[in-house]
């Protein structure tokens, strides 16, 4: 096989993966797109690892093993082909190259390998995670960030284009496009997404895949593996004419053409050098093949390990800070009685606050696909350990009784899959009625907006003077929030859903026996 084609292959694969994952995030849903996208999402490093443990060693969470295996053989193929944020950076790099003056288009080898920084961040990230906080994964993981950027920028952009065209068409009586409702994103979340997007864009325009080799914990983890991968990209000394074309196309800035050295830990396997070399001077070299042109200095390994140990030690110092925060967050919840406002409502299938907050990487896929837009990102609502994780906001909308969309897409298993039947008895919270602020009691007029919307009849209207007053049967309530959303009182609702810290089971709806036959033949008028 001519290895020059590897770059083309990488570009095609990465664009296909990128396109499908993006389509899922902007909620362009068909069964085909959903199944392909879901397959690619299983191949994302941290989401896959989290899924593996969240769903008790599920096969669908084994994607990370494949990634590790590929990395053990061929290096960080994941970073250039499967990671959507990597492809996004490549797209930004490609665009910026067209705009830059000729000289600045070139990359040059960077001696500074960022090892302490990147392994340090990886270590601290893992330590946070072990201690129960996904704070750093939520902030740094590439898939999570790609999701945040998609939901904050790409989805609204597509929706805006769609709605603008739609308005024009509607004036001509054409209703074939449907108007789409924008997700409501809190300002602070938009701000964080913007900063993340800007940082990534600036870093990539400035120095290629710098984000991947400094801040990205997935890149660091795979880099660590790749340093000892079985096959490595290597120089053919005889072929090199010293033209430096390879070095100038190296986005990771890990290729030193003068010394014919490639920093394997930083190489993202983009294969640009294969194509750039006019003499086909690059090849994959078996790690244990002869020592003649193996360019990685042997002391480098020892250095890596030392760096890793140093960062491990420095990260250990961070433990007290993290754990004390964790304790603080817990004691605030343990003693107090939870109400709708003290804990956010977590999506159906998320089992409990602990399960959800310890598995969700805030990628906002559930936010992007929710048809009612009831799932919205939060900021510090879950405390430090659940930074930016989504919640259900019943002032925005309510959870559709027959919809299980979010449970089907969650990549990490933070939201476990539910069938419609299972969801119908999953109680994520319980409605609490406040008669003293209800229209019926205060104004003495009929209302019943809450009971009208209740899908399980957990809310029923009972006779009250000459009118009807709502009454809650908690055992039937699933906590969907339809009542809270529909309640017309302002500024506070007369009925609200109190979150279940641990999701419970509601009584099932009585079995359907079909319609009764009407026994009267004549009209009663």
């Amino acid at each position: 096989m001519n290895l020059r084609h590897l770059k083309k292959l990488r570009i095609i694969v990465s664009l296909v993966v990128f396109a499908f994952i993006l389509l899922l995030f902007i909620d362009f849903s068909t069964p085909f797109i959903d199944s392909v996208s879901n397959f690619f999402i299983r191949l994302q490093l941290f989401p896959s690892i989290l899924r593996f443990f969240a769903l008790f060693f599920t096969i669908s969470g084994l994607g990370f093993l494949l990634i590790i295996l590929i990395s053990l053989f061929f290096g960080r193929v994941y970073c250039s082909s499967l990671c959507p944020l990597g492809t996004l950076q490549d797209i930004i790099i490609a665009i910026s190259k067209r705009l830059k003056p000729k000289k600045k288009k070139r990359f040059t080898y960077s001696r500074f390998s960022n090892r302490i920084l990147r392994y340090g961040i990886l270590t601290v990230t893992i330590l946070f995670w072990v201690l129960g906080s996904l704070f750093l994964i939520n902030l740094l993981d590439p898939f999570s960030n790609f999701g945040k950027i998609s939901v904050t920028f790409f989805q609204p952009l597509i929706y805006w284009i769609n709605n603008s065209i739609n308005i024009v068409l509607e004036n001509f009586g054409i209703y074939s496009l449907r108007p789409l409702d924008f997700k409501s994103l809190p300002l602070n979340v938009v701000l964080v997404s913007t900063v993340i997007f800007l940082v990534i864009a600036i870093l990539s325009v400035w120095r290629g895949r710098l984000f991947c080799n400094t801040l990205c914990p997935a890149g660091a983890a795979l880099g660590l593996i790749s340093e000892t991968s079985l096959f490595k990209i290597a120089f053919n000394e005889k072929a090199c004419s010293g033209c430096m074309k390879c070095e100038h196309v190296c986005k990771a800035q890990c290729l030193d053409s003068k010394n014919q050295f490639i920093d394997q830990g930083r190489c993202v396997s983009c294969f640009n050098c294969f194509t750039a070399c006019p003499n086909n001077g690059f090849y994959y070299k078996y790690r244990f093949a002869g020592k003649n042109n193996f360019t990685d200095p042997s002391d480098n390994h020892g250095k890596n390990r030392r760096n890793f140990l140093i960062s491990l030690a420095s990260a250990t110092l961070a433990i007290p800070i993290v754990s004390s925060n964790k304790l603080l967050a817990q004691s605030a919840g343990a003693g107090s009685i939870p109400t709708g406002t003290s804990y956010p409502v977590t999506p159906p299938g998320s089992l409990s606050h602990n399960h959800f907050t310890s598995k969700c990487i805030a990628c906002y896929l559930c936010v992007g696909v929710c048809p009612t837009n009831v799932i919205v990102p939060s900021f510090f609502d879950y405390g430090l350990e659940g930074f930016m994780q989504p919640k259900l906001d019943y002032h925005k909308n309510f959870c559709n009784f027959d919809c299980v969309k979010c449970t089907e897409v969650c990549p990490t298993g933070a939201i476990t899959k539910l069938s419609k039947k299972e969801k119908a008895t999953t109680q994520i919270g319980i409605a609490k009625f406040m008669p003293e602020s209800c229209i019926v009691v205060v104004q003495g007029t009929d209302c019943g907006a809450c009971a009208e919307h209740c899908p399980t009849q957990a809310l029923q209207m009972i006779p009250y003077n000459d009118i009807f007053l709502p009454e809650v049967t908690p055992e039937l309530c699933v906590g969907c929030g339809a009542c809270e959303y529909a309640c017309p009182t302002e500024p506070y609702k007369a009925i609200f859903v109190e979150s279940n810290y641990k999701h419970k089971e509601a009584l099932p709806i009585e079995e359907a026996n079909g319609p009764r036959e009407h026994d009267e033949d004549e009209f009663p008028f």
Partner: protein
Amino acid sequence: MDRRDFLKKGFLYSLSGSLITTASGFFSNVFGKGNSLPDLVAVRGSDPVTMYKRGIDEIGGMSRFVKRGQTVVVKPNIGWDVPPERAANTNPHLVKAIIESCYEAGARRVYCFDNTCDNWRRSYKNSGIEDAVNDANGQMVPGNQERYYHDVDIPGTKKLKNVKVHELLMESDLYINVPVLKHHGSTTLTIAMKNLMGVVWDRRFYHRNDLHQCIADFCLFERKPKLNIVDAYLVMTKNGPRGTSTSDLTRMKSLLISPDIVAIDSASARLFGADPNNIGHMRIAEKLGIGSLDLSKRNIERVYL
């Protein structure tokens, strides 16, 4: 022409159109055989489509209401994301048959929408109504965004002084109200008058400001349904308006047609087994002079199939 102009002109055109049609209806009533036509037709004993076809013939055919070249809005109840067999929404086959007969009467275009309670996409789809409308070459129109709704004043009302109404209701020549007869937790029943809550934007205003009064108030709005068709084939007799299962239903195999919204609500209430005088918005509507709940003096055609 900007959007405002477009809407204004559309409104004027439709207003003049409706004036002509009301005038022509008046003349045909005076000089034609109009007097012998019933005020209300009640059909019983078959499937919704068969009952509708017989019923519309009895009341003078769709051409009595829809004239050649007119645009029509058919307004079913599509409030809920539930399948047709749960009868929380109007029967889709009935909606299809109504749209087809509008076209047969010469309608230029037939639109269909509802401001749904559950998510609109899912309700349109899972009620079966979107597919039924498409099959009949009708035009399904969204009702989910505020920009479709425009402020109108309703003089003579007690609570509902002004309200945002869907633009298609203003722009088209006439609209046909196609509710499904159901139990309702707070208004006891939801029939024709209550179904018109689906053409306005802010339902919460109704709930906040005396629900029954607002429902009746809206019937004073100048744009009134030209025809009301009540689907009472499967009737939700408890747990309404959404229902929880098919156990909530009774198969009444009935259908009612009338241009008179109060008369049809009164008759449907009786069919349900309730006294219309006990239902707030019906009582208020009678008081407002919109119509009479008393059916004894009305020309009612009862058909048993």
